[in-house]
């Protein structure tokens, strides 16, 4: 089971969010790697990661920049963005992006979206 565990990386500058997401993902059976910034993630590298969840508003590289960066290195890696800014969220949502969540987000919906993303990836693999 452990071997089969998907590895989800979470990047947020708010430790409380990191903790709560780690808790939620672990409760769903995912292995979680938490990073307090984009820089921390890039230092650790993307290998072994099956999915990335990142906050948008962060010091240093923000969530979009991090996603673009990750897309260059691992285009197949699903990237989920979460934000507390509703105006940003509305903009994104207008483009019908499913991998985008507003704080406070629905935990069940998040988990379902992650599962869907990982399934598609697995099929593609």
């Amino acid at each position: 089971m452990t071997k089969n565990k998907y590895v989800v990386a979470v990047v947020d500058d708010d430790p409380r969010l990191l903790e709560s997401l780690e808790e939620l993902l672990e409760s769903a059976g995912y292995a979680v790697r938490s990073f307090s910034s984009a820089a921390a993630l890039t230092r650790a590298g993307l290998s072994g990661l099956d999915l990335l969840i990142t906050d948008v508003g962060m010091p240093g590289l923000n969530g979009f920049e991090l996603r673009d960066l990750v897309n260059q290195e691992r285009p197949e890696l699903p990237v989920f963005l979460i934000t507390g800014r509703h105006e940003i969220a509305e903009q994104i949502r207008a483009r019908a992006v499913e991998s985008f969540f507003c704080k406070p987000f629905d935990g069940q919906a998040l988990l379902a979206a992650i599962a869907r993303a990982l399934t598609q990836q697995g099929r593609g693999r």
Partner: protein
Amino acid sequence: MIAALHRTPPAMIFVMLALGLAACWSAGTPIGILAPLGALFLYARGYWLLSLWGGLLVALAGAVLAAMLYPGAIRDASRSLAALATVAGCIGLLLAPYPLRRSSRLAAMGRQAAGQPDGLAGDMDSVPEGAVHPDDRPAIAHAAAYAFWTGVPQVTSYRLREPDGSYRWTELRAEPGYGVSVDVDAMVSRPDDRWTVAESLGETVQAVQAAKVIESLHGKAWAFDAIGKFTYVTPAAQIAIDMALEDLNRRLGEREFIDGGEVGWMRGVHPDDVDGAAATLRHCLKTGEPWNIEYRMLRATGHYVWHRISARPTRDGEGRITGWFGTSIDIDVYKKTEAALREREKHLEQLIDTVPAMIWSMSAEGRPIYLNRRIMEVTGATLDTVKASDGSLSLKKMIHPNFWELAEKTFARSVATGAPYDIKYLQHRAGGTYRWTQTRAEPLCDEAGKIIRWYGVSVDIHDLITTQTELNLRKQELTRLIDLVPSFLWRLTPTGAPNFFNRRFIDFLGIDDGDLEQSRTERYAAALKVAIHPDDASRVWAEIKDCLSSGRPYAMRYRLRRHDGVYRWMDGRAEPLLDDDGGIIQWYGLSHDIDDQLRVEEALRESEQSLRQLVETLPALIYCAAPNGEPIYRSEKLGEFLGFGLGDKDAEGRTRLTGTLEAIIHPDDLPDVKERYGHSLATGAPYAMKHRLRRADGEYRWVETRTAAMKNAEGEIVQWNGICFEIEDQVRAQEALTLTQERLARAAQAASLAELSASIAHEVNQPLAAVVANSHACQRWLTSDPPNLERAQKTIERIIRDANSAADVVGRVRALFRQTDQARNLCPLDAILHEARDLMMEEAVRRRMRIEVEVEAGLPSLELDRIQIQQVLVNLIRNGLEAMEPARRGVLRVRTLRAGEFVRTEVRDTGAGIGAPDKVFEPFFSTKSHGMGMGLAISRTIIESHGGRLWAEDNQPSGATFIFTLPAEAKADHDR
């Protein structure tokens, strides 16, 4: 009888006429008419005779003609009349030769006598000596002598021998040898007059002889005896007085003449003279003294005639008087002449005395003899005052001392040389003054050229002299004036020939006075012709020609060449001098050198034009006003802008200023403009104001007007000069800018609020998101199989922690709006109020609204946060303005006053009012289409934090009032 009839022709004619008519009547034929006709032929002379002949010829011709033309009775009568006329003509022819001859002879004698006073003998010689009857010769001689001596014509009858030897009576008229200027009657003697001679001469033979000698000389003489009894009197004398010797000697009383008795001759003496004559004669008869006397004698004609009578006695050998002889001469002529002369002299004297001239005469030696009455009256002089002690002329009292020497020298020379005397001097007047007098004298000389008398006349020429002097002075003055006057004066004849230029004009043209070959007019005309500028010449001459013909005044400007060749502009004017009939006598003209003036005017005009152009081209509206503000000038641009002239808004009952202001200033701005303009006019302070100005098309445009006083050296305001910029675009731009700013500010406000809310949301969202995620995780841990309680426990702890974190966020937001009282200072509320008003002014103006601020005097300073209170005021003012926005006009009134322990401030608008006065203070409550609705909430918070209250009330009838109070005494709200 016949002689008497012959001497009186009218009587003869009358008698003939009477007899003729009687013959006609008795005989029944007109033959009787021949008698008066014959008498007429005998006496008629000259014109009458010619008329008589003419009448006869006409009658004869008429009768013959009638006889030829008419038959029957008329022919018979005519034949009879023709015969009568023919017979009458024959009688006339028979009578005519004699009287005609006589008349011519007598006339010739008369002429001879007049020409030769000494030729009486010749007189008689002209009548053939032998032709006069010897008896009549003495009488003719006596008559001639008497006429000669007395000057009285003598008519004497004498007999003239006819060629046939018979004598015929005829008359001689002896004229005196000279003419007299008085009328005297001729003395007539006839041969048939009565005269007598004494029967006996007695002792008077000698006296009679003497008398006859005298008679031969004088024509008349007489003699009487020692007792006065006439023994001889010349017959002609007896005839003249119609007294014969008997009549003369007739004793009329008992006494003899010599004894005082009256005798006949005394009846022939004038009653006034008779006693004297008789008395002196008696005396002479007694004493033998010669008798010389003049008295009036009665003539046969009935007239008294003056006679001069002389008688001398004759004596015998013993010296006894034997008789007297004497003569009497008719001196009536002399008496009458004397009287006439006296009358004439008197008349002359009166003439001399009454002519308005001062006449005098003096002797050849220069001694005054006569002064006429006028000279004495006028000068007050008398013969005595003009004579020196030796009788010579002295003018000392007569003329002014300044002229003594001159007058005496002139006088002395004239007397010495006989040259006429003519001098003008100041002569003394009776009133004590001196007047200019011209005195002329000329000598009257005798035939030898010796001066007999000097006759002089003095004429008062004072008025003439003073007038002349005055006239001369005037003339000099006028000449000087004409030459000095700094203009050119000239004169033209009616035909346009110049006949006078004044000195300046002559000098200007450089006319040479010395050239005498040409007349002055020609020289002037030639000089003028070349002096007029060629470009002006045709115009000038045409105008002059036109004026000369029409007589209208002439006025022109032209250039004239000065003697140095420089052309100068002239202003020439001329007007005709007219006589009473309107004919032109002369043209008088003046040319004024206006060259300098023209240049100055030109420069001025250019300068003015340049200034005007400057003013008119300046992109501004310019105007000027009198010190009282009345508009006196507007630039063209301003005039065009307003669309009416300076005086167009004048009306009864208001000044031009008021009328103009009311016409051009927007009604909303008018009170302010009036107040501030009035203030400037009253104080002289510059005026600056932005207001709306009515354009000609009725649209109001925003302008900025600035006016300042122009003062003279004394500091008095002479004029107000103003400039007016159209700032409509600027205001519009400003409004647009303000709108943009406002929009921006709103946006910024909205943005900042959005940001704030976003950041609040973020702050809240973070822990909230964590809580939510943890809650889901917890749920999963609890629902997993087996439930992971440990993890759930840990998750719940995190949930609690994050939820608290979210609550903290809310607390921090609250803390954000919490006020501090650290910025509070003592501030005067009115200052803050005015600041706020000024901040909002622009916005009010843009909204066409006004803000009125009224602050009660003596308000205390308050301890407050100046910025916050200002924010509150700005907030309330803006709310008020916005509330009035739909009306687009109105006045927002801000009033601050003391209310007990508080200072109360009211902001009153005239908007729609508020529906729920309390609700408006709730956060996010807004009646406006945009805005967060936070303003009033924050304001209330601020006011309350200062210990005051903020509330709203509705106004009646409309609008709302926001009221806030602040504690008057510094009482910081430390509780908050």
